[in-house]
């Protein structure tokens, strides 16, 4: 393949990043459409009135899949141009052979990294798995409860009952379960050792702090930092020279909005997980007459796993993209309102609200379908 090729890599990368986001969104719409049309066909309408509707959702999905492949390839060509002239911005000219060689070389690790960065964000199941499995965590606490260990409230104190004698069996499994025991047998009800187990609000704030507060030792011990590091790391990679949004860069509004949206998703997930955890602890406490340690952590794990799988799914990734785009629109709207006055902004807001309504109307059946 002799001869020369030329391009402005930033243009190729800009097309590729937007195109792949949109193609993923169209794929989600296609799946939702398939479900809706299947439901209509399944109701077997009178054939003389309405024949079977063809699989148009599948057609849309095929278009989206082809578009993803093409748009991803354009991005790889853009990066190959960049690689042949490192440090050069603007128009780049290079030999076709050099470009083809670069394109073949770059498809491996970089593609893997880009795929990884798309699913690494918002993996909030990891901290909850750590919190469940670690010594003193949810699983050993629950197993200790099964062996008869109880925290019972009595006369303003919490009494630890049952299975009090350590090392009655020195197996590794037994020692693991024993990590859940509190060192003492009697604590004041408002003491920091037991209050998070006994009081819903305290339990919630403690779980929430574990997930978001770097000044809290449990933030590091429980693994929440890994969730944040993966999320922010993937965002940084996306906007670096090798990522899907290389053409936008770190100074872009998209990068700031991605960080803001992912911070919001993380805090919301940790909040819901903390609510589930404290709620489950309170509910089981009320049901059994004593605290059931570990159940709260297991409930938090279920929420973390659910959100993690959802955010890694095409629907979750589409929702995140729409949130980032929506935040950009909201910022544009705010700027527009200030610069052109209230009346213009009100008119514009009406159309934005209509778009938002259309988005949510279209998303609801798709989310239901995927779950």
């Amino acid at each position: 393949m002799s001869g020369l090729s030329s391009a402005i890599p930033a243009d190729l990368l800009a097309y590729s990043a937007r195109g792949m986001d949109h193609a993923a969104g169209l794929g989600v719409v296609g799946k939702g459409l398939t479900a809706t049309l299947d439901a209509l066909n399944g109701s077997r309408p009178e054939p003389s009135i309405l024949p079977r509707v063809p699989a148009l959702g599948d057609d849309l999905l095929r278009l989206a899949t082809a578009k993803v492949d093409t748009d991803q390839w354009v991005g790889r060509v853009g990066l190959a141009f960049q690689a042949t002239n490192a440090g050069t911005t603007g128009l780049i000219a290079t030999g076709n052979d050099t470009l083809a060689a670069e394109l073949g070389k770059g498809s491996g690790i970089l593609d893997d990294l880009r795929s990884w960065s798309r699913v690494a964000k918002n993996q909030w199941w990891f901290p909850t798995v750590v919190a469940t499995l670690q010594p003193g965590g949810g699983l050993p606490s629950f197993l200790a409860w099964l062996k008869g260990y109880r925290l019972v409230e009595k006369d303003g104190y919490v009494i630890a009952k049952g299975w009090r004698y350590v090392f009655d069996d020195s197996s590794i499994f037994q020692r693991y379960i024993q990590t859940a025991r509190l060192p003492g047998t009697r604590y004041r009800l408002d003491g920091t050792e037991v209050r998070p187990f006994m009081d819903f609000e305290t339990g919630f704030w403690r779980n929430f702090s574990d997930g978001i507060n770097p000044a809290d030792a449990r933030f590091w011990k429980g693994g929440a930092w890994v969730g944040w590091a993966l999320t922010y790391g993937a965002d940084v990679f996306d906007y670096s020279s090798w990522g899907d949004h290389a053409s936008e860069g770190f100074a872009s509004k998209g990068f700031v909005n991605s960080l803001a949206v992912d911070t919001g998703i993380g805090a919301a997930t940790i909040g819901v997980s903390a609510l589930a955890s404290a709620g489950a602890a309170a509910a089981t406490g009320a049901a059994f007459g004593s605290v059931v340690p570990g159940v709260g952590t297991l409930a938090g794990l279920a929420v973390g796993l659910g959100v993690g799988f959802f955010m890694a799914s095409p629907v979750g990734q589409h929702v995140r993209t729409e949130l980032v785009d929506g935040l950009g629109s909201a910022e544009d709207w705010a700027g527009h309102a200030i610069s052109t006055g209230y009346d213009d902004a009100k008119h514009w807001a009406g159309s934005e609200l209509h778009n938002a309504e259309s988005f949510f109307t279209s998303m609801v059946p798709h989310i239901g379908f995927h779950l």
Partner: protein
Amino acid sequence: MLHDGGGPPFPDPVRFDHQLASAAATALRDAVTKIRDAMSTDVPLGRTALVNWRGPFADQFRATFDDQQQRAVPQLIDDLLAWAKRIDDASAAATALQAQHDRANQRWREDNP
């Protein structure tokens, strides 16, 4: 369906779920909106990319891009809109047919008090 027994001529309602039909027509039109929204950004970006892009890879992309924009996407949009209209028409036809059946049933009841 005419009834051969002693009852009204159309004892069964016309088989057509208006709610599902309405949801399907809306989903088809929403899909068109989504495609048009996506293309309103992607087409200008694709054209911008092609302005300075030269060489065999550019030719390969141009052929795919043009086929997508000039054939695949318009064809799919036409199909989606045509079926949305067809479902709306079917819904109206089902309503009219049901009314016709109801009138026939009513006449039968009046003739067979």
